[in-house]
């Protein structure tokens, strides 16, 4: 079967487009075949990521076919060449597939006239407001008007229709109804690509208008993409509208650091008077990487840059004098830090967050090791060591997965935890991959999953071990006998390729560790390791947790005690004091150094505070959950007195007689590659390599793929997992069982729009933030006399909070979902008390 398919898909046909002889796979649309050959056919409604609809009619071409003798079926020849018969009418290049001997012509007067006519029709209802339109300068309609438009309008301007020009479709997207050319790219994107048809057309004919059906409006994590693919200035984003002109801006390649997918982005920057003459970021755009984010971004990633404020930045080293922190010089601060570190020696700990660069982690770990201290990671997920053993094989691309492959999602609300992973798995499912979901509640990924195993919170490890057929030492027979689990296990085991995504839905650190072991074991048992499109993906909740693990950092079950007992804590890029228990511990730590970009709660109680740089101000690399190492570049200048983390660490190290690279991130990376085996073959030049990608987007023809940027600064490199021959041993253990002494068990879950610092500090994203809430089972709520949307009082880990009650039928009785970073601190599942008010 697969052979037949392969043969079918690789069958090539010969044709000519504009007299150029080309070969293209059978079934390729004319517009795509032309694109491959370097010939532009103008389009508005067609987009290479979506099904063709033939609506705008701009891609008119003349299509001829070889004539055949009616009786013999043979090709009729004329002057030694097949005689070509052209159709009576022009055809749309986006709806016709290429075939053997086809002749496509796009340069004749007839074709040109056809396209001119379509353009004239479009302009008859389009306003002439290019000078104030955000799309001006990168607008397909504007560009094609220059190519095909008439110098003057035959349509009476007085008869133009006037429509609302500032319609908020949602909090993030504004619609200008006059500019819309009804190409349906936005509505098709929401429907076809992200399965969330919350916008659509209303009315008909020239009254056809885009409206939103959701409450709140345009309720989707993906709305920003519609602005990229909108071929006119009808859809604009809340952050950028009337903000700048495209030609005034520079482009800087970067990598999104909101989650562990590490989407490729481009920051557009401009030096402007209204920002005091500073070079500032005006918008974030997707940068094509077909192995990571294709040409898409989630809204949080797109708008996250707006959370960085000039005013709340740390710009000067601070040193404690009694109750207050006072400004000091770098020399004094570093001297003091080095002195205290030396005193602490082995009794020092470094505690890092999940968003530092690999270079930062490397230097910090080197320094910590030099002193004999502990390299700790402030994270509630585990398994990075196993990912480095059985992570995705080199050359993995989820876009290559389909028929015959399996993808297992366990303990993860994938769209909330890593939106692009959700999208990529959805597409794999559409190509025929069997998606298995083992979750304790319904998620949006259920919609495309073939096997939905509904487990109880706490059974995550058990279900995976059941699938692996592990018998001894675990009391999970009830799952192994489950018909669905059996069927899923069979599919997973027999799949050509199989990938596991494990997340943090309902799990704390210990649960995560057990689950990661079980997942690695299942992959090893089923031989889904060490090959492309096989292996383990930890859906980390921070951008570079995998990098932190790779550089030697580990989370600690006893973090509070570790801090309490330490004589010196070097806290970089995280805010432990925002958690009560850690704050108490830190107060017992003899000396606390905080290295960060903002005055965090931890910084406020620190002895020395060192001002670091935001990732948009410097160079570095991240390692994604798929273990792809990617470079990010500086987009804007850093405040004068700040330094990148790796440099600050190197300066401390120097005072402790340890020589670490500090000149440039690229040089740190060379050291890193020498000492960290998995990274041995990498350097900044290799990471900047680019190969040809399909679809071809981001060139002069913005009409084809939208305004996503072409990738010229590097696709990154996926590093190979350690395992090629060895297998993962499974040490029998009894998975911890969630005890439920009280009536309700609180479990931590992730929501993309939380109340974390990114959301709270961004004026653009703020309207999308929900009030603090928990989710209850409907029956439980009824018993408590709680209705959806009312305020309730919850008590968790000794803290009481007033939150909104949300209800969910799919939830098991007695379970209360507590979103992370939503106002109620939660790290592990535990008892919760609920009172109706």
């Amino acid at each position, binding site marked *: 079967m697969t052979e037949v398919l392969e043969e079918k898909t690789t069958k090539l046909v010969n044709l000519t487009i504009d007299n150029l002889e080309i070969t293209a796979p059978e079934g390729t649309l004319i517009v795509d075949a032309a694109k491959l050959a370097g010939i532009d056919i103008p389009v508005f409604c067609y987009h290479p990521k979506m099904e*063709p*609809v*033939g*609506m*705008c*009619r*701009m891609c*008119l071409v003349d299509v001829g076919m070889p004539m055949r003798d009616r009786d013999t079926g043979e090709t009729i020849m004329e002057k030694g060449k097949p005689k070509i018969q052209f159709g*009576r*009418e*022009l055809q749309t290049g986006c*709806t016709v597939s290429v075939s053997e001997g086809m002749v496509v012509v796009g340069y004749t007067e007839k074709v040109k006239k*056809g396209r001119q*006519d*379509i353009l*004239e*029709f*479009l302009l*008859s*209802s389009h306003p002439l407001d290019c000078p104030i339109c955000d799309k001006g300068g990168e607008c397909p309609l504007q560009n094609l008007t220059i190519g095909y438009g008439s110098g003057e309008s*035959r*349509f*009476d301007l007085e*008869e133009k229709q006037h429509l609302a020009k500032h319609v908020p479709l949602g909090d993030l997207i504004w619609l200008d109804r006059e500019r819309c*050319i*009804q190409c349906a790219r936005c509505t098709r994107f929401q429907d076809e690509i992200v399965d969330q048809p919350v916008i*659509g*057309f209303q*009315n*008909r*004919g*020239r*009254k*056809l208008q885009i409206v939103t059906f959701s409450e709140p409006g345009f309720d989707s994590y993906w709305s920003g993409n519609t602005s990229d693919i909108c071929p006119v200035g009808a859809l604009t984003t809340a952050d950028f509208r009337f903000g700048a002109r495209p030609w005034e801006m520079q482009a800087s390649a970067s990598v999104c650091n909101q989650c562990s997918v590490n989407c490729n982005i481009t920051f557009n920057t401009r030096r402007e008077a209204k920002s005091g003459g500073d070079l500032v970021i005006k918008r974030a755009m997707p940068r094509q990487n077909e192995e990571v984010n294709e040409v898409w971004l989630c809204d949080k990633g797109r708008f996250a840059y707006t959370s960085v404020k000039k005013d709340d930045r740390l710009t000067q080293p601070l040193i404690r004098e009694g109750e207050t922190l006072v400004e000091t010089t770098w020399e004094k601060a570093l001297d003091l830090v080095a002195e205290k570190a030396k005193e602490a020696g082995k009794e020092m700990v470094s505690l890092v967050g999940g968003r530092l660069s690999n270079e930062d982690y490397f230097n910090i770990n080197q320094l910590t090791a030099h002193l004999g201290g502990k390299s700790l990671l402030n994270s509630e997920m585990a398994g990075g060591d196993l990912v480095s053993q059985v992570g995705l094989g080199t050359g993995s691309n989820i876009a290559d997965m389909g028929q015959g492959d399996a993808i297992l999602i366990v303990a993860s609300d994938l769209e909330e935890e890593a939106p692009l992973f959700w999208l990529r798995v959805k597409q794999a499912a559409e190509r025929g991959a069997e998606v298995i979901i083992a979750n304790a509640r319904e998620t949006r990924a259920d919609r495309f999953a073939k096997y939905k195993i509904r487990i109880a919170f706490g059974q995550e490890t058990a279900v995976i071990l059941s699938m692996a057929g592990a018998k001894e030492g675990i009391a999970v027979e009830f799952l192994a006998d489950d018909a669905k689990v059996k069927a899923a296990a069979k599919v997973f085991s027999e799949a050509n390729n199989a990938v596991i995504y494990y997340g943090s839905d309902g799990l704390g650190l210990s649960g995560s560790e057990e689950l990661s072991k079980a997942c690695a074991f299942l992959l090893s048992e089923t031989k889904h390791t060490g090959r492309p499109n096989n292996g383990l993906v930890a859906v980390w909740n921070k951008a570079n947790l995998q990098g932190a693990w790779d550089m030697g950092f580990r989370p600690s079950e006893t973090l509070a005690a570790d801090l309490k007992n330490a004589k010196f804590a070097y806290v970089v890029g995280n805010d432990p004091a925002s958690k009560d228990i850690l704050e108490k511990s830190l107060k017992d730590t003899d000396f606390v150094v905080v290295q960060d970009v903002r005055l965090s709660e931890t910084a406020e109680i620190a002895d020395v505070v060192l001002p670091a740089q935001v990732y948009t101000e410097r160079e570095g690399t991240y390692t994604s959950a798929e273990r792809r190492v990617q470079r990010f570049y500086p987009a804007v200048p850093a405040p004068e007195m700040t330094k990148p983390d790796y440099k600050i660490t190197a300066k401390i190290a120097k005072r402790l007689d340890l020589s670490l690279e500090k000149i440039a991130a690229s040089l740190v990376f060379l050291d890193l590659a020498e000492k960290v085996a998995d990274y041995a073959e990498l350097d900044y030049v290799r990471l900047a390599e680019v190969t040809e990608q399909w679809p071809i987007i981001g060139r002069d023809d913005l009409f084809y793929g939208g305004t996503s940027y072409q990738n010229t600064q590097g696709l990154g490199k996926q590093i190979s997992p350690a395992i090629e021959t060895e297998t993962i041993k499974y040490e029998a253990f009894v998975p911890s069982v969630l005890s439920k002494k009280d009536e309700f068990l609180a479990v931590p879950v992730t929501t993309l729009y939380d109340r974390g610092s990114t959301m709270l500090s961004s004026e653009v994203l703020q309207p999308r933030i929900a009030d603090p809430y928990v989710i209850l089972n409907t029956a439980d709520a009824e018993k408590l006399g709680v209705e959806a949307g009312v305020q309730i009082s919850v008590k968790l880990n000794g803290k009481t909070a007033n939150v909104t009650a949300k209800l969910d039928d799919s939830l098991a009785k007695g379970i209360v979902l507590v979103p992370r970073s939503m106002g109620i601190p939660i790290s592990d599942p535990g008892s919760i008390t609920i009172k109706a008010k």
Partner: protein
Amino acid sequence: MSKVDKHILLRHHEIPDIANIKTYQADGGFETFRKVVSTKMDPVELKNIVHDSGLRGRGGAGFPTGLKWKFVDDNNWPHYLVVNADESEPGTFKDREIMEKNPWQFFEGIMVSAYAISANDIYIYLRGEFWELAHVLDEQIELMKKEGLLGKNLFGTEYELNIFTHLGAGAYICGEETALLESLEGKMGQPRVRPPFPPAVGLYAKPTVVNNVETLANVSLIVEKGANWYRKFGTEKSAGTKVFSLSGRVKNPGNYELPLGTPFRELIYEHGGGIIDDRPIKGIMAAGASSSIIVADDKALDTPMDYESVPDVGAQLGSASVIILDDTVDMSWLINKTTHFFKHESCGKCTPCREGAFWMTSLTERIRSKKGTMEDVILLEDVAKNIKGKTLCALGEFSTEAVLSAIERFPDDFDAQVNK
């Protein structure tokens, strides 16, 4: 055997009580369906009979019905039969009369057709205004279930057949078969890109035959009496009779079932009683608002009304909704009406129709309000030409027919309207 006298479709003229199921059955009604199902007749044989009869689609395109049925993909199941009862072409009112006055023959026709394409479900898509009729059809469907004519295990065989009615929401475009299917699926009524055609990918992406009410109402009698019997009516290439919906400036408007090939003159003057006040005839629209306007000279009046001959006078037979225009009708007024109609009904999916119909309307408005110049008329003609051949479906194409023919064939009417 069913009695057939002057009419094949409008048989209520001869059998006034034929809408009563007992009367219809007494006349041999449902015997063909019973025979076809109970003898497990080969569907291929049925397709061949209909193909050989020369029956062509009565919805407007005149596509050979049997050939369409043969395109149904037998490697993809299930199959659906969808009856196009959207009857929305201005000037067309034949399907309604068939369904109201001769319902059982209509039903038997669609039931035999469903068997022929191996479909177990029939959807009758009715225009929204037919809600009263839909109610009656629903009652009749219930009655047929009780009579054992619908449902499972028909006549002791394994064959199952169900009929469902579905009301549109008042859109002309839903008479276009792929827009109809979209609407039937609960989506916005907009045409699909073709190919693939419905017999390959139709309702719910399954092989589907979409046929007009009138087309299918012929089928049971064709199967009963044979292809050659049907070929006795009409012309060689346009077999059978056709219900002509006659309207406009005639004394006796109405539905007239006549053999295809009957000249316009006979329809207008013999059956229609001639022009009101015996005024001179000026033009003929043979296919409702979608028509080119035929100059009603002697040559046109003597032209046989069939699929091949009407193009000779620069028009199409279409659904044969014949609108008569006399010398009181100003063509600039007329195309103002048709362009307004098409502007209102354009679904908006493709650019030339959406924008072009809008533009043409504003130009005809200007001309009608005597604010236009000859340049506006020239522009109008050019806009219509620019729409033609570039639209996604036929609706956009149709919107230009009256405009182009009016300007070309009746220039005086425009001269009189514009400022010199």
